[in-house]
């Protein structure tokens, strides 16, 4: 807008100047014309006057001539008496009077002449009168008298006087003539001067106008030239800009830039070089132009070498005159043959880094303007190169990331904070049976039914707390509607679109299926082994017992070996099946109140023969302890027997194994102490594992199955107790079992937390190893209940031993066992404690049947759990009220 306004302003100024100049010029012409006209009139007037003067003079001359004629005729008549002369005289005399009248007429304007007229008239009258007198004399008296009269000279005198008057008048007219001629000449001169001046003035104006117009034109030409340079630069820049933005690849963009340099800057060959920073060379990515390429031209130039390399190294643009510049290897001849005379190069830099060089050869000298033009586009090209490279490396890294993500065997899902699916990988597609297109943008609830609550963000919050940074188990739904378990590890990340969550997903259905098959296989094999084993043991027993006739000593020895080992095999099979049963929660526990002392006594008696075999003594300490526990008598006996037999096996001959009972605050503790070798340090952590022996050979040497302690621990935990050991190498070991004492259990009122002055608040035990979830649940329950948290089976047992709870919220997958193991403890007589499963695991049918409610974590929510707990508490309260026994 601005240049246009300027141009318009200049146009107006020029116009004003021209109009002013022309107006002044016109006025001058007008003034000169008027002036000339008026001068011309004056000249004409003067000329009229001169003519008039001439006429006056003529008239005077005519009068003077008439006078002479009169005189001559008089004289002739006098002398000759000839009447002809008289006639002549009469004619002339008659003209004389009108002649004078004429004089009077033409000199009327001049007072000085007019003044002489009466004198002239009078003299003339006298002359005529005298002449008449002479003539009369001649006629009458003859010649002599007439001559005498003439000789008086009277006539002559009059004539002279008249002549004088006439002369005076002529003189006057001559003076006037001279004067008028002068005036006329003056006017003429002035006229000439004014005209000349006017013409000069016109010339001056014309010149001024010419100058102005010329100046203006020159200025316009300059502006137009400047404009065309700007336009050229702009088109060039635009061409480069378009090349950079519209080309699909960097290579194509640079080709287009090179073409633009040739097209707009008049180069013969333009090329664009990009630095390969790894090898420190410039690589020619684009070239364009009509010039024939130098066949020796390099495609790669080390930074710092040759023209282009130096420009890249120094970062300074250059124009080189090829005709004088020292030639570079291989191009001098080429340049000459191709008529190249100039070279220009400009570095491509971004933030101080030189990314490359744009270069141009030309058949004409390259101007600073062209270099300037290169400079204006260098930044854009450099940015383009930089961006393309950044995009390339981004693409490469994206490809890498995508390949990794797509190649993962684990499914990967990302969702935004509103639980909408943002991306899935191939494995996730496979796991859930959906295609990517079907999933992206969908709510997470289509994959995880549990996520379909009223507030997806609430689900996300809950999932965050449960699954962030660790592996947790969830229920998923496939496209075909089938529900399956999967492992989820959640992580959080941020993008420009805000917070996102990623979940690594592993399908557990196969894993569970394998687990199930394995268990089934072990179980089947074990059962199948029992049948032949029964026959073998039976047959051997019969033969060894002599049922088939007497045996030699050798045969008896071999049969004993066979029998012993078949029994061992039977034990092993039974142990395996026991473990399977306990783990599956299928082992029945008949919980009852038991006195500890008789139980221990019985156990010692049962094991005494075995101990005798090893030469080991058994002793019960504190056998009169009056403590009662809640347990399954058979299972507890199994536990004590296991511990005793271990102690006996590992005791040196002659040592004593002690069985010790003691009552603590809420528990009864049973200890089995031996004086064996102790448990090696490295074995202590695995001692309760399966097929774990301090030495693999011990199984055979000591006759164990390697499952004893594993089963023992499982049983103890099912009984609501805890098991442990202390050991010292070379001194012996003590295995202990702690079981809840009945008194401590039964003595407790059901709802016992009565705040001072407050209403009784129910107590809830939440058994869950999740570090955060219990906090959420406690917060949700805090409105109406107090919540204790147990992080594992052992802690839960302690809690349950230490107090009564109105409801227990139970997880199954715990670090030290299964929540199912707590069931016997909860269903003990004297008041079973209602419990609610809240677990990621599937709950076995039978266990679920015993529970007040079942919530699978991935399918349910904390809110639903809280509702269940409320319901259970309400039912309990109703039951208590109905019974009328508020404890």
């Amino acid at each position: 807008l601005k240049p246009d306004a300027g141009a318009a302003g200049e146009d107006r100024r020029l116009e004003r100047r021209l109009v002013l100049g022309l107006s002044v010029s016109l006025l001058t012409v007008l003034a000169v014309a008027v002036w000339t006209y008026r001068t011309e009139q004056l000249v004409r007037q003067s000329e009229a006057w001169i003519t008039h003067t001439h006429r006056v003079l003529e008239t005077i001359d005519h009068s003077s001539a008439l006078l002479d004629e009169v005189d001559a005729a008089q004289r002739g008549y006098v002398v000759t008496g000839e009447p002809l002369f008289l006639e002549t005289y009469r004619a002339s005399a008659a003209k004389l009077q009108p002649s004078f009248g004429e004089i009077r007429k033409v000199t009327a304007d001049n007072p000085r002449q007019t003044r002489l007229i009466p004198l002239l008239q009078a003299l003339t009258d006298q002359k005529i009168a005298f002449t008449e007198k002479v003539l009369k004399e001649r006629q009458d008296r003859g010649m002599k008298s007439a001559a005498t009269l003439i000789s008086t000279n009277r006539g002559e005198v009059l004539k002279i006087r008249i002549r004088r008057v006439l002369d005076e008048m002529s003189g006057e007219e001559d003076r006037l003539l001279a004067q008028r001629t002068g005036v006329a000449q003056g006017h003429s001169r002035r006229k000439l001067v004014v005209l000349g001046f006017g013409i000069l003035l016109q010339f001056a104006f014309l010149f001024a106008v010419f100058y102005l117009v010329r100046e203006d034109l020159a200025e316009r030409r300059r502006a137009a030239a400047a404009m065309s340079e700007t336009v050229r630069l702009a088109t060039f820049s635009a061409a480069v800009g378009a090349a950079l933005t519209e080309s699909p690849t960097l290579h194509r963009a640079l080709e287009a830039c090179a073409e633009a340099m040739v097209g707009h800057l008049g180069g013969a060959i333009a090329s664009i070089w990009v630095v390969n920073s790894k090898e420190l060379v410039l690589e020619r990515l684009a070239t364009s132009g009509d010039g024939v390429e130098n066949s020796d031209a390099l495609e790669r130039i080390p930074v710092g070498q040759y023209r282009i390399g130096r420009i890249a190294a120094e970062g300074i643009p250059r124009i080189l005159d090829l005709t004088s510049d020292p030639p570079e290897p291989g191009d001098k001849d080429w340049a000459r043959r191709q008529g190249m005379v100039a070279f220009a190069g400009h570095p491509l830099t971004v933030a101080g880094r030189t990314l490359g060089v744009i270069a141009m050869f030309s058949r004409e000298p390259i101007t600073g303007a062209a270099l300037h033009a290169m400079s204006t586009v260098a930044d854009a090209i450099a940015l383009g190169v930089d961006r393309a490279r950044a995009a390339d490396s981004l693409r490469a890294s994206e490809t890498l990331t995508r390949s990794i993500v797509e190649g993962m065997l684990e499914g990967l899902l990302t969702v935004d904070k509103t639980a909408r699916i943002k991306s899935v990988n191939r494995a996730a597609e496979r796991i859930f049976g959906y295609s990517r297109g079907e999933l992206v943008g969908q709510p997470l609830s289509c994959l995880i039914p549990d996520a379909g609550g009223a507030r997806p963000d609430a689900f996300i919050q809950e999932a965050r707390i449960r699954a962030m940074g660790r592996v947790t188990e969830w229920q998923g739904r496939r496209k075909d509607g089938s529900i399956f378990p999967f492992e989820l590890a959640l992580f959080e990340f941020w993008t420009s679109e805000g917070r996102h969550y990623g979940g690594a997903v592993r399908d557990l259905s196969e894993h569970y299926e394998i687990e199930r098959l394995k268990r089934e296989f072990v179980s089947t094999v074990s059962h199948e082994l029992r049948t032949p084993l029964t026959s073998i043991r039976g047959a051997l027993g019969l033969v060894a017992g002599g049922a088939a006739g007497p045996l030699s000593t050798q045969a008896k020895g071999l049969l004993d070996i066979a029998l012993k080992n078949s029994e061992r095999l039977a034990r092993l099979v039974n142990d395996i099946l026991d473990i399977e049963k306990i783990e599956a929660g299928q082992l029945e526990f008949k919980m009852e109140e038991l006195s500890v002392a008789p139980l221990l006594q019985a156990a010692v008696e049962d094991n005494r023969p075995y101990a005798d075999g090893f030469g080991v003594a058994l002793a019960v300490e504190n056998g009169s302890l009056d403590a009662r526990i809640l347990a399954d008598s058979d299972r507890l006996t199994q536990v004590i027997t296991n511990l005793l037999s271990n102690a006996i096996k590992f005791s040196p001959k002659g040592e004593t194994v002690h069985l010790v009972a003691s009552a603590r605050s809420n528990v009864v503790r049973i200890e089995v102490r031996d004086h064996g070798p102790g448990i090696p340090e490295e074995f202590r952590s695995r001692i309760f594992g399966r097929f774990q022996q301090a030495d693999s050979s011990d199984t055979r040497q000591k006759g164990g199955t390697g499952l004893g302690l594993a089963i023992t621990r499982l049983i103890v935990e099912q009984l609501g107790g805890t098991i442990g050991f202390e050991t010292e190498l070379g001194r012996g070991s003590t295995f202990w079992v702690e079981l809840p004492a009945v008194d401590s259990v039964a003595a407790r009122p059901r709802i016992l937390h009565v705040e001072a002055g407050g209403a009784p608040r129910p107590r809830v035990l939440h058994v869950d190893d999740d570090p955060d979830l219990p906090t959420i649940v406690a917060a949700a329950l805090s409105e109406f209940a107090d919540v204790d948290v147990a992080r594992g089976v052992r802690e839960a047992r302690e809690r349950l031993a230490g107090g009564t709870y109105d409801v227990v919220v139970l997880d199954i997958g715990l670090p030290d066992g299964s929540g199912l193991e707590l069931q016997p403890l909860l269903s003990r007589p004297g008041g079973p404690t209602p419990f609610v499963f809240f677990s990621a695991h599937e709950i076995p049918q039978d266990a679920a049947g015993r529970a007040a409610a079942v919530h699978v974590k991935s399918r349910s929510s904390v809110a639903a759990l809280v509702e269940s707990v409320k319901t259970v508490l309400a039912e309990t309260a109703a039951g208590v009220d109905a019974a009328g026994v508020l404890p």
Partner: protein
Amino acid sequence: VKDVLERVLYVEDDPDIRAVGAFALGLGGITVRSCASGDEAVAAATTFGPQLILLDVMMPGMDGPATLEALRALDATAATPVVFMTAKVQPAQVAVYREMGAVEVIPKPFDPMTLAADLRTIWQRAG
């Protein structure tokens, strides 16, 4: 050097298997020195001077391979053929035992009626 196998050093930690094994070999006319551990075998080797050593692999303390190594260090048993007896007889495992210097591996459970004959064959082959 006799060309018939007569003296076998038998190392087996399980007393029942040891009893059965020794019985079977004795039945085949082989003089057996039964040892319950590697240590016992090393102690007995020089005096006994076995023509073949039958070695259990899994034993407490010195296991089969360790016992083999210890026996190789003795002059009396430096070159005596050794046969491993084990329940772990996967081909890869057998290759490892052979690598250790065993001439043969007899799988458990073994046939007591053919054990002596088997060892004789092996001994002849190794001979």
